[in-house]
């Protein structure tokens, strides 16, 4: 045999242990073949492939959609509660001089930065500008049930606790009907968003796991249906890696395609929500637009999904390949 091997070398054929350069080339050739094989497999049963991609795509789009909505709720909350402004509603029947007098008194406090007086007319106008309120305001006719409102802005450096104390003091004033602490509302919203965010993270993890299982199961079925081909490959000397590779590529394709599907679905959702959201924002003063998911995040989704697909295929092939070799 060694004589034959020398002959083979003389004929310029690759020997059993190729040089590093040759090994790299061999690696490339093998990958090219496995890549083509994986694409052929997916194309052989387009419906099954489409279904798997769709299921995975939806599973990945769902947490993205929640993430999108949550981000915007939080932005809305942030914009509304930028100042820790406290709205003080005066009792009905208190007139302009009374309101101005109280405003002047409050301006004198050390923990108050500014006080603006909102007349009932201003309040009605703001209400009419709000989405959906115009007919109700029209229906009121000439009567205006709104009270005077003092918008009290605490000193910005004030801690939350000090603001709460201020709010409590305002509540005890005789002319005051109601004190609305936007800061407290903001705090509650933040807490709520925090809980929702954790829920979305959990959901994302679960759905990623589901996507992993979908790929794993699809690859498992594919391996089962190709037992004959796998046996042939092993008999003609394919390494475990070579036999496995088309299935890994298959998993990567599933992941990549479903990631793209998920991104497209989310972009569609953004498109559908952008119009109504802009109108809503406009009614609140307009400086607040609808924010889509950041491009870098969207770009990482298909790659993350591809990684997920690879992992699913790797797990499935580890379990179902290689049982054919004697030990």
């Amino acid at each position, binding site marked *: 045999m060694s004589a034959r091997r020398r002959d083979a070398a003389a004929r310029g054929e*690759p020997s059993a242990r190729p040089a590093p350069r040759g090994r790299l080339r061999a690696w490339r*050739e093998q990958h090219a073949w496995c890549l083509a094989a994986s694409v052929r497999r997916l194309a052989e049963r387009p419906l099954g492939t489409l279904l798997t991609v769709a299921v995975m795509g939806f599973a990945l789009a769902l947490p993205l959609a929640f993430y999108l909505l949550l981000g915007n709720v939080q932005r809305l909350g942030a914009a509304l509660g930028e100042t820790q402004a406290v709205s003080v509603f005066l009792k009905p029947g208190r007139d302009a001089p009374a309101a101005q007098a109280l405003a002047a008194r409050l301006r004198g406090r050390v923990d108050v930065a500014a006080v603006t007086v909102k007349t009932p007319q201003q309040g009605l106008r703001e209400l009419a500008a709000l989405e959906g309120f115009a007919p109700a305001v029209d229906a009121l006719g000439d009567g205006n049930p709104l009270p005077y409102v003092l918008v009290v802005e605490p000193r910005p450096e004030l801690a939350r606790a000090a603001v709460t104390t201020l709010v409590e003091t305002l509540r005890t004033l005789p002319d005051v009907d109601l004190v609305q602490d936007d800061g407290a509302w903001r705090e509650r919203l933040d807490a709520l968003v925090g809980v929702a965010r954790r829920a979305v993270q959990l959901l994302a993890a679960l759905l990623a796991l589901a996507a992993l299982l979908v790929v794993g199961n699809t690859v498992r079925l594919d391996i089962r249906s190709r037992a004959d081909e796998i046996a*042939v490959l092993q*008999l003609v000397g394919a390494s475990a890696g070579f036999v496995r590779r088309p299935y890994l590529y298959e998993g990567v394709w599933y992941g990549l395609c479903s990631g793209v599907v998920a991104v497209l679905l989310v972009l569609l959702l953004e498109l559908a929500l952008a119009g109504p959201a802009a109108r809503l924002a406009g009614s609140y003063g307009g400086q607040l637009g609808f924010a889509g998911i950041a491009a870098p995040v969207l770009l990482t989704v298909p790659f993350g999904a591809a990684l997920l697909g690879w992992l699913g295929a790797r797990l499935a092939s580890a379990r179902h390949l290689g049982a054919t070799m004697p030990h």
Partner: protein
Amino acid sequence: MIRFDQVSKRYAAGQEALSQLSFHIAPGEMVFVTGHSGAGKSTLLKLLALIERPTRGTVTLDGQNLGTVGVRGIPRLRRKLGMVFQDHRLLLDRSVFANVELPLVIAGVPPEERARRVRAALDKVGLLAYEKQPPALLSTGEQQRVGIARAIVAKPALLIADEPTGNLDPQLSLEIMQLFADFQQVGTTVVIASHDLMLIKRMKKRVIVLDHGRLIADLAAEEVA
């Protein structure tokens, strides 16, 4: 090239398929392994390709004790030999060309050289015109020749065949055997399991006869009449 030393093989369920088998095959020899059905012919070949492992004894191939080859080493070993099966084991959803090309892809040969060598192998077995066909459209004899082309395309030093003419008529069988003899002519060691005694006699090569897993005769080429 091949040495069996006191090799026994017992399958998990059942009696011994091979019993204390010892023989040696030199490089470049062509040897028939024959015997009744169940004599252990296929088992002998399976030990060579590490499809099975012996229960006792050692099989040495090309100076390498196969007992020392681990699971990871099996693919490399199989790449050194060409295997032909009675049921030819072709990929039915791929073309003849793609089937024959397979060992070269696995060995990492670049496409142009692959095409050249596949065509040379198909030419050798007389199937050059069929390269684009799927194997299912070929006759049984032609499918067997595709299997042979695949076995020899990577120019292995050892060619083993298990009942390669099992499903063929005498004329086609003789053609196939002649093909194997041609490979021996260019230096390949050839081991063929067959129960077709008529055919074996005509070939005038060394014959190893098994009976219930025991070697009962080892006839040199000159002794075969």
